[in-house]
């Protein structure tokens, strides 16, 4: 019996953790804009300043 209770508490804690993460992601604005992040991730972050110095004419 006691095992079940421990398991139950554990399972609810895990679920609550996910709920917490979900709430945090809403607060951080993850659901405000669903278009740009998938595009943004595809941009190569070139070390542009270095790039510029090595090839000043381009």
């Amino acid at each position, binding site marked *: 019996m006691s095992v079940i209770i421990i398991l139950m508490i554990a399972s609810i804690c895990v679920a609550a953790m996910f709920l917490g993460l979900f709430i945090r992601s809403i607060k951080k604005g993850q659901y405000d804009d669903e278009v*740009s992040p998938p595009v943004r991730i595809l941009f190569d972050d070139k070390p*542009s*300043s270095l790039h*510029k110095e090595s090839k000043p004419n*381009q």
Partner: protein
Amino acid sequence: MAKTAQQTLSCYHCGDECNTIIKAHEKNFCCEGCRSVYEILNKNGMCDYYEISNNPGLSQRIKVREDKFAFLDEENIQASLINFRDDEQTHVTFYLPQMHCSSCLWLLENLYRLNDGVITSKVNFPRKEADIIFDHNKVSLRKVAELLTSIGYEPYISLNNLKKKTTSYDRSKLFKLGVAGFCFANIMLLSFPEYLGIDTKEQGLVNIFRYLNLILSLPVFFYSATEFYSSAWSGLKHRFLNIDAPIVLEILIAFGRSVYEVLSGTGGGYFDSMAGIVFFMLVGRVLQDKVYRQLSFERDYTSYFPVAVTLVKEEKDEIVTLPDIKLDDTLLIHSQELIPADGIITKGKALIDYSFVTGESLPVAKEMGEIVYAGGKQVEGNIEILVIKEVAQSYLTKLWNKEEKQRVVENERSFVHMMARYFTVILFSIAIAAAIYWQINDPSKTWNAVTAVLIVACPCALLLSNTFTNGNVLRILGRNEFYLRNAQTIEDIAAVDHIVFDKTGTLTTGRYNDVDYNGQTLSSDLKKKIASLAAQSTHPMSKAILKWLDVSQRYTVQGFKEKAGKGIEGIVAEDVISLGSELFVTGNRHSKNNQSSVYLSVEGELIGVFTFRNHYRDEIPVLLRKLQKNYSISVLSGDNDGEKNYLERLLGKGHQLLFNKSPEAKLYAIEALQQQGKKVMMIGDGLNDAGALKQADVGIAISEESNSFTPASDAILKADKLKYLYSFIKACKANKKVVLFAFVISVLYNIVGLSFAVQGTLSPLIAAILMPASSLSILLITFGMSNFLANRLRLK
């Protein structure tokens, strides 16, 4: 400059066809503006911009006035625009309507590479906004705006920005949904022992499960469900039982009875059913909200007007915000600026584009001493006007304010709300009948049966069928770039029996594309000369002539002169060629209507006349033919009746054609139709239709760009999708059938549930299976059916 070109080249920056080609850096550009954007990016090593998408820029042919953003140096204007400021940073959000592709996103987020003062910039793509954080010790707000403008993203700052901060998206429903989902899933899990039959010896364990359920249901009841309480309560306050009322009743009873059962130790209650209802209903609401986030249907004139204008004072010009304009002030209106208040021209010659207000597509010339109305856009040159009416009193703004007669309690007409009433009435009669029956036969079962009836008779399947079908239809229409304000609009569109079209900008493209030529035959050499001259001007008529001439070779033009509103002149291959109004070309004025014709003379000799016609959208004849079968059609136009014959041919007999209508006259025309008992749909574009759009049962605003500003309306339709209008209307009609079908199914579920409930044998297990099963199956049915119908209508 390249003089000859074998084929038309497209601009490296914007992809437009180049009339005059500017070569730089081995690339072709159509204008200096595009070239300078390229050079700015090239200098900073940011040519990735051109690699992410092809020709990502927008044409820069119309230059932005240099001190356009001077008003951003004013403290009080800054204060109302910025979001946050401390010693080092300023946070500001700009609306950038030109944003359209992933290249834009990349460039705007790399602003810091163009200017040291910019710390970060983050784009919200659906809203076309950029949040920019900059160091105001290094760069001013004005400089940031000018930086954006210099790379082709001119911030749109309107009077509306002064009034309120842009509200961020309401996230509360998402929180509620998250909480409800968490509780619902856990309650389900913890209810299993109860359903599967736990050993009676383990009474302690049973109680632990029950109390845990009770605790988990509290956030659902007190937090997630508040959405419905407030809606039901506001309905009740207006003495109106809306669809949320029976849901709230059900939640209350299910919760009350479950708490009682748990506390008295008589049973496990119906917590899972309750949490399930709340969860599913919230899913519907969240999906519905999502479709509409970025669209604004509630625009008023302030979204169109600039924030500030230049006030002419004796000592020095001053920049004032619009609300501060007083009578008898003298305003300086720059080229391409909107006239903010009615006034008299005191200096300069005005050429005013009223297309925004009247739908008339060609600019009107006004002389000193004449009155100009707010809403017109000065096209070329600067003018000064003396204000004769304050901004809020102007002709245009008054028109907006007049239509503030909102359609109240429109929900009452709704099919679902009507059903909700019947539903509630029937539900109560069943509950009472059950109560009486058990009171007579077995009083101990009364309480049990009545509460069970109220719990299981769930209007949620009915409501879900409606929310989900509507939501899905809204999404399907949205995918086809037809955006409805809300679900009610679907029903309204289905009920329409009379359709009114605006002409300019709706049936026509609003551009003068069709050219007729009368006069001496043009030799191919002369054509080439005319084309060379016309290519020098950006006037829509010059462009149309250029297109009509269809010659790609050019001569060099010398001594080019352009007189605003009059015409152009230049020496091409030793011939003086003039193109323009009759007065400009011949020096006389004979014909009455010279607005839509351009005269051509070579060496002072009149050669011929180009006449212009509005270009009707290609698909219009087909659409009108389809619509004619089922609807009566009117055309309302602010223009003259020059195209009456053509329209009559298009529409056939028995349809109303009204010309020379002022914005109010359009509104009254709609009102008159409504008084004949007709359900009117109005389709229009400019502000001149704003009154009519609001008055109509369904007002659809046509927009060339789905995110550009449109007048307040029930729906926004992208111009090139107008041809699908007939299918859209059909889809709206089909919507009702789907809802009805789903409703029948939900009634069947209810009958099954109720048959258990009235006998007093509804176990929590049956309720727990029945509720999610009905919700899910309704969901699948509505999705499947509406998608199937959309497919049949060949909608995406």
